[in-house]
């Protein structure tokens, strides 16, 4: 029975009327709220998590005495997705109506109309549902302090997806600001299962609070809407999680888990291909499995894979099953159509990318298929959680490996999920470009004193260790650009008055800041429109694609997009014009989509599995055979060793390494090794990388090289610095930091600056700044971003430390079984960069000369 002092009768009756009783974690959240404690709820999807977050607010609003003055916002809910905020508004209004409560809950996103936004400012709803970007806009509004003075609670949904990112940094700063406005505000986080909840607690909590008295973990006991629900949780027994986070101001509440998921690995026709990413070989079987299920989500890792799988499935679709496609390049309208059809239960399968990793609940999904390897156990648990949002039924998931190394990875991921081991994340240090944006926002809102803002910022978890020097550097950057050449002191964007208060210089500076708020920087995109001929007219928009994609195409080329074959006609401004080409075989060049690196944890498991022959028995016969051949012809390294093979092939000499650290870290390693090999005079000619291995080939043999020297950790010093400065990756990272930090702007009042223009000018700015002030704040930010994101330098550092003195060299006379997959990838890659761009120019020139001579 529910204690009456926890749940008012009106609410208990609502539960009872549905034949439910409140779950333990829902009651625990109410207790935490009554005690005035911040709380993080970790529970799998489908456990009534959202309601658990809102119940304390509903109770407080229900019990609140009538007052004369109109009340401000009571609860602010923040979701990473606009669609989710709108969805939760709808889902929340249902119980509010059914309970007969007089509570107003409204969403506010970038899509909300101006009239509604204006009304929300004058008459705040009791519960406001919004996004981190809207919160940042509120923080830059002069009315913010008064507006949020009555705020009792902030709820962060999908906290696991937000905290380890720049958006998470911005959000943490926004929460710190809210706490200043409303000192008694409670913080509530809702999160899916994570490896280390303390990291999320630290992010969510108020730094510098004394350690909690009696804080700690409350356990849900699994008592759910149906009495039969038991079984262990995908989040593991509560004891697996650290029980006490020392010095954390946020209490942890664990939801009960559902049934153990059923995870299988599909070995289609008893064989696994040597190489590849598409799992084409298994498509017929995948189709049959879809046909035998109610509704399936088919996850892939890239947009290219999504388009490909969608095509293949429809080729086989004799029964005409409603199979849809969903990825980030499709137009928002098209995606919404698919989502709506899904919600109505009209679809049998959706082929999708990470766009459907989280968000709206679909009760009918009974199977999750992962085409090609999952790359990380945590992401996979999220994806599996999309199936069967009913706790008592196990989620079903099927992995379809596309190659032999992927087979190992899928097996490792399936085991990890069953054993409840998830990928760890490193602790987050708040980005300084994000802080710059926040400082400018604060100055737009109200005058501040430096020391006060510094103290406030450091209460945000990611900025707990921010030094005063860095803070001053950031403020100087916001004010004058932070240049050693003090040219801009007279043009300051924020100015200090005689009493030591800082504020925005003028209304123009404020307006420009508000137009450019946010920490998400998307690559420049072009609209894909139907139209052709010499003077294309604005035809129907079928989606968006990254600018670089069309740069590889020549008019007349065909490609697959939105599940159809199209002919590319022209690129005019920000529009790519295409016409349907239904009978053509698509040329289908490589399609940029997000490619996830293999998680460190999963990589470790794969290495272990490879070394342990007992584990081979779980693999299909052809994969076992492959590994046995490898053992006989080359060698299988120990778990803590790295295998390096050298062998000649044709006129070239190859060096193939198997670190299993993911494509990003491998690419960085290959770039650095190539520089060293060049200095050693072996004439490296090229390299290719995948998630498992890298392959460098050269003019001269590499058998005799001193490998410990070659892989010495000092390559992360000068070699890295030299290469990085020239790298297009740095330019891209710099552009993102310059946008977030407010150095350049996405939008000017009255005009849209196209992504194309931004691309060009930031490269120029980067080159000039690097030469004249290499220690500038934004270059520091860009280096830090490149090191963690694009280049995975941190991981490369760990790799070099791990393999020091543990490189097993096999000098072979021909290619080994393990090396076959990476040999097959040669020719599919191209490395952009200055050398490559000169090569393009030279080739174009040869073309001209040939033309002239013919």
């Amino acid at each position, binding site marked *: 029975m529910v204690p009456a002092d926890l749940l008012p009768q009106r609410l208990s009756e609502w539960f009872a009327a549905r034949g439910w009783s409140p779950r333990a974690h829902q009651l625990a959240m109410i207790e935490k709220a009554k005690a005035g404690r911040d709380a993080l709820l970790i529970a799998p999807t489908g456990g009534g998590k959202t309601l658990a977050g809102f119940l304390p607010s509903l109770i407080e609003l229900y019990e609140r005495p009538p007052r004369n003055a109109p009340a401000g916002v009571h609860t602010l809910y923040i979701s990473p997705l606009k669609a989710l905020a709108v969805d939760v508004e709808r889902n929340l209004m249902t119980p509010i109506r059914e309970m007969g409560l007089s509570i107003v809950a409204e969403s506010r996103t970038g899509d909300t109309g101006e009239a509604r936004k204006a009304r929300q400012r004058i008459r705040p709803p009791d519960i406001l549902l919004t996004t981190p970007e809207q919160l940042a806009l509120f923080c830059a509004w002069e009315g913010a302090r008064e507006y949020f003075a009555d705020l009792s609670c902030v709820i962060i949904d999908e906290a696991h997806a937000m905290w380890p990112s720049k958006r998470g940094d911005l959000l943490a700063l926004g929460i710190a600001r809210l706490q200043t406005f409303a000192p008694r505000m409670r913080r509530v986080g809702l999160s899916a299962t994570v490896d280390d909840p303390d990291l999320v607690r630290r992010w969510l909590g108020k730094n510098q609070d004394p350690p909690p008295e009696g804080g700690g973990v409350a356990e849900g006991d699994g008592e759910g809407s149906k009495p039969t629900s038991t079984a262990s949780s995908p989040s593991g027994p509560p004891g697996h999680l650290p029980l006490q986070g020392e010095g954390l101001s946020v209490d942890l509440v664990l939801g009960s888990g559902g049934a153990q998921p059923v995870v299988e690995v599909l070995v289609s026709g008893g064989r696994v291909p040597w190489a590849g990413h598409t799992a084409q070989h298994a498509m017929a079987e995948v189709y049959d499995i879809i046909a035998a299920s109610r509704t399936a989500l088919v996850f892939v890792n890239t947009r290219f894979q999504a388009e490909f799988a969608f095509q293949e499935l429809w080729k086989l679709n004799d029964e005409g099953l409603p199979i849809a496609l969903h990825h980030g390049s499709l137009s928002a309208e098209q995606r919404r159509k698919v989502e709506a059809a899904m919600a109505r239960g009209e679809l049998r399968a959706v082929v999708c990318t990470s766009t459907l990793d989280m968000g709206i609940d679909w009760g009918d999904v009974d199977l999750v298929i992962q085409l090609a390897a999952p790359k990380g156990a945590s992401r996979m648990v999220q994806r599996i959680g999309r199936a069967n949002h009913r706790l008592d039924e196990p989620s079903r998931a099927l992995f379809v490996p596309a190659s032999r190394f992927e087979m190992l990875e899928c097996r490792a991921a399936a085991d990890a999920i069953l054993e409840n081991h998830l990928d760890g994340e490193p602790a987050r240090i708040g980005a300084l470009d994000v802080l710059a944006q926040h400082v400018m926002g604060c100055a737009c809102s109200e005058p501040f004193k430096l020391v006060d803002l510094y103290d406030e910022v450091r209460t945000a978890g990611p900025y707990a260790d921010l030094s005063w020097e860095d803070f001053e550097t950031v403020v100087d950057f916001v004010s*004058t*650009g932070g240049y050693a*050449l003090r040219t801009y002191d007279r*043009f300051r964007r924020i100015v200090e008055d005689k009493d030591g208060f800082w504020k925005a210089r003028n209304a123009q500076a404020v307006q420009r800041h508000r137009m450019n708020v946010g920490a998400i920087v998307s690559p420049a995109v072009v609209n894909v429109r139907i139209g052709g001929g010499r003077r294309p007219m604005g035809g129907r928009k079928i989606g968006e694609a990254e600018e670089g994609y069309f740069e590889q195409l*020549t008019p007349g080329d065909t490609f697959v997009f939105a599940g159809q074959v199209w002919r590319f006609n022209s690129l005019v401004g920000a529009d790519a014009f295409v016409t349907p080409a239904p009978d053509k075989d698509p040329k289908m060049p490589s399609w940029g989509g997000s490619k996830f690196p293999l998680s460190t944890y999963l990589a470790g498991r794969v290495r272990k599995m490879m070394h342990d022959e007992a584990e081979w028995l779980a693999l299909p016969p052809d994969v076992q055979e492959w590994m046995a051949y490898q053992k006989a012809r080359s060698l299988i390294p120990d778990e803590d060793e790295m295998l390096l093979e050298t062998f000649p092939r044709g006129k070239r000499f190859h060096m193939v390494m198997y670190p299993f650290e993911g494509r990003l870290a491998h690419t960085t390693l290959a770039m650095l090794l190539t520089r060293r090999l060049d200095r050693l005079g072996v004439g490296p000619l090229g390299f290719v990388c995948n998630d498992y291995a890298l392959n460098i080939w050269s003019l001269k043999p590499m058998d005799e090289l001193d490998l410990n020297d070659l892989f010495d950790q000092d390559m992360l010093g000068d070699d890295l610095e030299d290469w990085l400065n020239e790298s297009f990756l740095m330019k891209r990272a710099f552009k993102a930091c310059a946008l977030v930090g407010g150095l350049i702007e996405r939008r000017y009042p009255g005009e849209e600056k196209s992504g194309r223009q931004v691309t060009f*000018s930031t490269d120029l*700015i980067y080159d*000039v700044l690097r030469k004249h002030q290499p220690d500038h704040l934004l270059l520091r930010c860009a280096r830090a971003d490149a090191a963690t994101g694009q280049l995975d330098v941190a991981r490369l550092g760990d790799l070099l430390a791990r393999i020091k003195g543990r490189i097993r060299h096999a000098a072979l006379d021909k290619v080994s079984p393990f090396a076959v997959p990476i040999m097959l990838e040669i020719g599919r890659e191209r490395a952009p960069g200055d050398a490559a761009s000169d090569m393009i120019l030279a080739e*174009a020139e040869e073309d001209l000369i040939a033309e002239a001579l013919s």
Partner: protein
Amino acid sequence: MTTRFQLSDCGGLAVMVSERLVLLRGSGALWLEAERALVVADLHFEKGSSYAARFGQMLPPYDTRETLSRLEAEVAALAPATLIFLGDSFHDGAAEDRLAADDADRLRALSVGRDLIWAVGNHDADGPRALPGQVIDELSIGGLILRHEPEPGVQPGEVAGHLHPAARVSSGRGSVRKRCFVTDGQRLILPAFGAYTGGLNILDQAFSNLFAAPPLAGALGGKRVHAVGPRSLRPD
């Protein structure tokens, strides 16, 4: 008519413009050997600071000294007797006043032992006021006519800037976008020399009425100027 060109030892490209041999330098400058004249277009000095002055946008204020370094390197390499600025040398009318003192000194130093000629452009219609040199509208030199903005119609021997030409060059390997010279053998347009100057694709309409024959692009690569024909050009 095929445009005649020849690679030179210094990485430049020698081309005929209206029966006159000129050298397109890898820096984007034009070298007239017989006259020992170096021509540069569209330097846009103080473009960075113009954003701070107008919008409060704090772009790195180092573009002027970067452009100056490039210019000094060319002067050191060629020792020109005349240095000709082909207009839009300053980004706006107040740019000269915003020059940092040491940058202004470097500019003055360039005038020692040689003539400075400032053709005016649309950004700097009055030319510099305090700096040494002669301010002109246009100039005839060695059978060529040098002016900022290309005139419409057939203009044999015209050398101009203003348009900031850039080429998107494509080969089987991919495509790159580079600043470039563009010429049909009659007229020559120089790339913008300034550190913060962007480029306009030479397939843009602005170029379409300037050339009788399909022009040749001299794209500025990392080490030299690459001759690129119409077949390898792409729109943006």
